[in-house]
């Protein structure tokens, strides 16, 4: 909302000493922020001058050399505007002058001295949309009665200042000059001046005799219509034009301008219909599905029953609260008009305007309108039409009113103010603040009964009143204190933090990527079926679907860094995976890793391989308390992973994740990834740390190596040994695996170190050998293994 100081001063006497910046700051302190504040025209040293002599520039085919009288002196000025001519009264920028687009200094243009510039309105910083066709053509020409040598901005009537407010959405009342006047009046303790609503109606006819309104929808709570006849369409007086320009609205003609002017003053948008084209009845109803309407902008719109339309007996003629229809628009030949002042359902207007156009009018309907202003606005427009469009106002008004426009009464306990704000504000001060805001107070000692005017749609409960008191007392005057601590300790599940720290200690960089990914990646690196979730109206093709696996995001990060020649990558992320199940939306915490390049970087580099990633996964599982409770299988590997270099991670029989190398079908690079469903993992019981006494008897260590078929997984041998090794077999460690021709090309040799220990006595070799023999026998039989003879 742009607030013109001149416009504001029509309704309150604002002290000259209050600068526009001070006003803006004082408004900010009561909760009304602003974007900018300053003069409407940001220029200096502009005076009215008259061109006395105008000759062609000797060295140019479009420049003129002018002598300009600015009363105090005659200036020689080179001018490039096509419309410059002798006797013309013009805007002169006298050096040193500042214009929005630069400084004007004395200069020489193609050999001729130029002591200033003749200006167009555009050069003063006025937006193109405010300019008439004539103004766009060249420099501005004053009317002949303007006195030369005077301040040009003042002569233009543009010596105004503007604050551009960014208002909060609850303050519908501030979308009007009157509302601003009340708010600013409360800050500086000023009374509001009356608004002139007088006119002389033509008592010979009453509108109700010849015009009818028929409200057929609940989406219109108040509808008023009046008729003005015999009006003359012409340009508005300068003060109306300039106030509209200062408020950011383009002047058009006196009639259209008056509807906008009244909207700015009262906050009530009006609509004027050409009475002849409209006919003698207005119907307000919901649109039919697929009903067509050509709006003011000549675009044909297709409507549905969510839209509210204004119609005559034939067809829809306007979209209520959003935009008028093309057929009933006020044109230059219009003589009689029907004035509409109404309130339409804010949600419906919001929906329609979102579809079609957000305008000054729709914005006000969306935020809500005070019914009293609906009445005020129609009378005000009658006053202005009579005064500035020579209209005759027909007496009477068509009225449909379902609103309750009685002032609200709210009772508030004095104690409650202190309880909420935490400060003791004297009762007198509270009452004074509410009075300044124009509220009427009944002091009942411990409580106040407050009558709130209807214009304050935002005030409904006592907390709203407390906020008003706080706003004007100064929220910043509240003295800080700390709440009394109830002694309870907060709860916090820090497991995700522990996982994060573990991953970092293993040398991985934590990433943070987007949950929304490209739909084409959604089921990659996943080995189960799930129902994906898409966004209704995505911002881009890249971000349409909620990720289920985090690996596609990590892969994207890999590509990004690879393109920047960064190839040693070890990253992880903890985030959520999303899916739908039985019409419910689900999200699960996941941890994903991606490693590529060198894991250890030195003279002796160590490249990332399957076993490094497996090691990281094992370390994490051990750390989280799943030691000895997990295993790896080659079942159920996602398609995007290498079938021979990948595994599923099983904890206590439940598959909780995958790890492996990305398939060569996906990438040429050696990239290893893993993903663990943390929620699944956390649902599995962990082992607590419980001290086990340290064994004081010596251990017996035996090495065994077998030659077996190379397809047999080492884990199978380990499991067999575990089964056959007896209770004293404490540890099995694979310390060497190799393949070579000497042992047969389909074979591998696997060497294991077995540790035996008894917690009650020292084991003898003979005791251990009984177990060893059993192990050898079982492994040899079961796997068709050959015991290597170098065993001891």
């Amino acid at each position, binding site marked *: 909302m742009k607030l013109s100081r001149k416009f504001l001063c029509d309704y309150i006497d604002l002290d000259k000493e209050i600068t526009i910046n001070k006003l803006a700051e004082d408004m900010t302190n009561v909760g009304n922020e602003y974007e900018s504040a300053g003069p409407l025209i940001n220029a200096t040293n502009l005076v009215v001058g008259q061109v006395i002599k105008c000759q062609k520039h000797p060295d140019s085919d479009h420049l003129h050399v002018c002598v300009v009288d600015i009363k105090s002196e005659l200036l020689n000025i080179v001018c490039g505007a096509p419309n410059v001519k002798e006797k013309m009264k013009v805007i002169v920028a006298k050096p040193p002058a500042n214009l929005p687009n630069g400084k004007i200094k004395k200069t020489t243009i193609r050999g001729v001295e130029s002591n200033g510039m003749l200006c167009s309105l555009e050069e003063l910083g006025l937006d193109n949309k405010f300019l008439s066709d004539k103004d766009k053509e060249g420099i501005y020409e004053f009317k002949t009665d303007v006195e030369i040598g005077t301040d040009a901005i003042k002569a233009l009537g543009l010596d105004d200042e503007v604050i551009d407010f960014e208002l909060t959405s609850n303050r519908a009342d501030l979308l009007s000059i009157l509302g601003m006047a009340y708010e600013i009046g409360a800050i500086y303790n000023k009374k509001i001046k009356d608004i002139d609503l007088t006119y002389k109606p033509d008592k010979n006819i009453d509108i109700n005799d010849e015009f009818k309104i028929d409200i057929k929808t609940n989406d219109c709570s108040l509808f008023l219509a009046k008729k003005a006849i015999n009006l003359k369409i012409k340009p508005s007086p300068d003060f109306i034009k300039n106030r509209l320009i200062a408020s950011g609205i383009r002047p058009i003609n006196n009639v259209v301008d008056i509807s906008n002017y009244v909207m700015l003053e009262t906050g009530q948008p009006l609509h004027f219909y050409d009475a002849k084209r409209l006919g003698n009845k207005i119907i307000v109803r919901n649109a039919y599905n697929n009903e067509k309407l050509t709006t003011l902008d000549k675009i044909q719109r297709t409507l549905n029953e969510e839209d509210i339309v204004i119609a005559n007996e034939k067809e829809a003629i306007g979209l209520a609260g959003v935009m008028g229809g093309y057929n009933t628009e006020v044109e230059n030949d219009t003589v009689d008009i029907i004035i509409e002042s109404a309130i339409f359902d804010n949600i419906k207007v919001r929906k329609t305007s979102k579809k079609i156009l957000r305008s000054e009018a729709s914005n006000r309907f969306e935020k809500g309108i005070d019914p009293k202003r609906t009445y005020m606005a129609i009378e005000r427009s009658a006053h202005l039409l009579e005064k500035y469009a020579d209209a005759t106002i027909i007496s009477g008004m068509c009225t449909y009113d379902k609103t309750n426009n009685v002032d609200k009464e709210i009772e508030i306990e004095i104690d409650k103010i202190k309880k909420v704000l935490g400060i003791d504000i004297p009762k007198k001060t509270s009452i004074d603040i509410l009075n300044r805001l124009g509220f009427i107070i009944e002091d009942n000692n411990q409580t106040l009964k407050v009558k709130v005017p209807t214009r304050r749609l935002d005030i409904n409960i006592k907390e709203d009143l407390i906020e008003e008191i706080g706003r004007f007392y100064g929220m910043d005057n*509240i003295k800080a204190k700390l709440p009394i601590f109830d002694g309870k300790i907060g709860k916090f599940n820090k497991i995700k933090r522990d996982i994060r720290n573990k991953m970092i200690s293993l040398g991985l960089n934590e990433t*943070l990527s987007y949950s929304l990914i490209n739909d084409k990646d959604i089921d990659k690196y996943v080995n189960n079926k799930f129902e994906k979730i898409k966004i209704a109206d995505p911002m881009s093709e890249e971000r349409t679907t909620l990720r289920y696996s985090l690996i596609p995001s990590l892969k994207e990060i890999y590509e990004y860094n690879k393109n920047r020649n960064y190839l040693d990558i070890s990253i992880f992320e903890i985030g959520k995976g999303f899916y739908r199940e039985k019409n419910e939306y689900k999200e699960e915490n996941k941890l994903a890793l991606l490693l590529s390049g060198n894991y250890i*970087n030195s003279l002796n580099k160590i490249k990332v391989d399957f076993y490094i990633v497996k090691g990281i996964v094992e370390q994490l599982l051990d750390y989280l308390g799943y030691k000895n409770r997990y295993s790896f299988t080659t079942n159920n590997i996602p398609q995007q992973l290498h079938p021979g270099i990948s595994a599923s991670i099983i904890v206590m029989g439940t598959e909780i994740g995958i790890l492996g190398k990305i398939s060569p079908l996906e990438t040429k690079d050696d990239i290893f990834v893993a993903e663990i469903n943390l929620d699944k993992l956390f649902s599995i019981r962990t082992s607590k740390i419980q001290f086990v006494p340290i064994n004081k008897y010596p251990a017996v260590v035996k090495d065994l190596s077998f030659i077996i078929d190379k397809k047999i997984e080492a884990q199978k041998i380990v499991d067999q040994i575990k089964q056959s090794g007896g209770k004293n077999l404490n540890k099995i460690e694979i310390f060497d695996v190799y393949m070579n021709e000497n042992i047969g090309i389909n074979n591998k040799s696997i060497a294991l170190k077995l540790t035996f220990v008894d917690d009650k006595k020292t084991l003898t070799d003979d005791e251990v050998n009984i177990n060893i023999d059993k192990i050898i026998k079982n492994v040899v039989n079961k796997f068709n293994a050959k015991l290597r003879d170098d065993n001891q």
Partner: protein
Amino acid sequence: MDNIKIIKEQLLKDLQTIDTIKKLNDLKIEYLGKKGKITTLNSTIKSIDDDKKKEFGIKLNDLKQTFNTKYKEMYEKLNQELINQKLESERIDITLPATKIKYGSKHPISRVIEEFEDLFLSMGYTIYDGPELESDENCFQKLNIAKGHPARDAQDTFYLENEYENYLLRSQTSAAQVRAMEENKEKGPLKIVCPGKVYRKDEDATHSHQFMQIEGLVIDENVSMADLKGTLELFLKKFLGEKTTVRFRPSYFPFTEPSVEVDISCFKCGGKGCNLCKQTGFIEVLGAGMVHPHVLQMCGYDPNKYQGFAFGTGIDRFTMFKYSINDIRTIYGNDIRFLEQFDRRDDNNEIK
């Protein structure tokens, strides 16, 4: 007798030629071996006259002692030389590059979240984790933002497919307020913070369509705006430095009444005015207020008995302040060269 003297002189001479432990041991055999020179002398004692036996014995012992002492000295000297040689041969170039185990690093957003969590935990708050997929009811309606409410404009929301105004990616962590209040079956005092991801259709240098917020909520019979101010002052001073001052400005949020915007004195210029604070000396960092009685009511609390305060802020901005990051896209860019910079503990909590 003379033999002893001769052997001793010979021994001393021989010792001078010894330069290895092997030669030293050979010498030991030569003198003290089974047929060694000294051993042989030992056996001649029988043929010596009784009156001279004692003297012979003393001299022979003296010779043995001399040998042993000299042997020991010599052995230690030679052994030391050997060790020195070995150590010298093992010498490495300590200036060669170290074995570099990869850097691990914590994302700056995680760092700031953890710092916030620890701060609020120390004040007795519970860390609450709410879902990112939310119902319109929890994210808006129960926060006093009915369907069609103009405040919805400020947050262009990602609705899920076929779920317009029904199910969405939460646009504010305030949704967690609703959950925490509803889950608290006793409907008694509550003290939570909820950090987490939120989503809005917005993308430029200061906005990302996905970002991080933290929401705080305290409910009790007597908590007031003054308590809110004290809490936020403590939190902001701890994070941004003790010199930070906090300013309350009235504002509007549908779910709090009264509502305030919270400004901090600019940590970059100390309030004098600079580019960061747009010459105002203050930076807007937080929205807060007293929980709206309708919200309390909708979440099952008795607004006549309980009142509370709530606050919410963007974690991304604090992260950008703390580490002087200018563009939010850097945070979500995941360039390794960015991530690796966060490879050590934070030196202190003061932003300079």
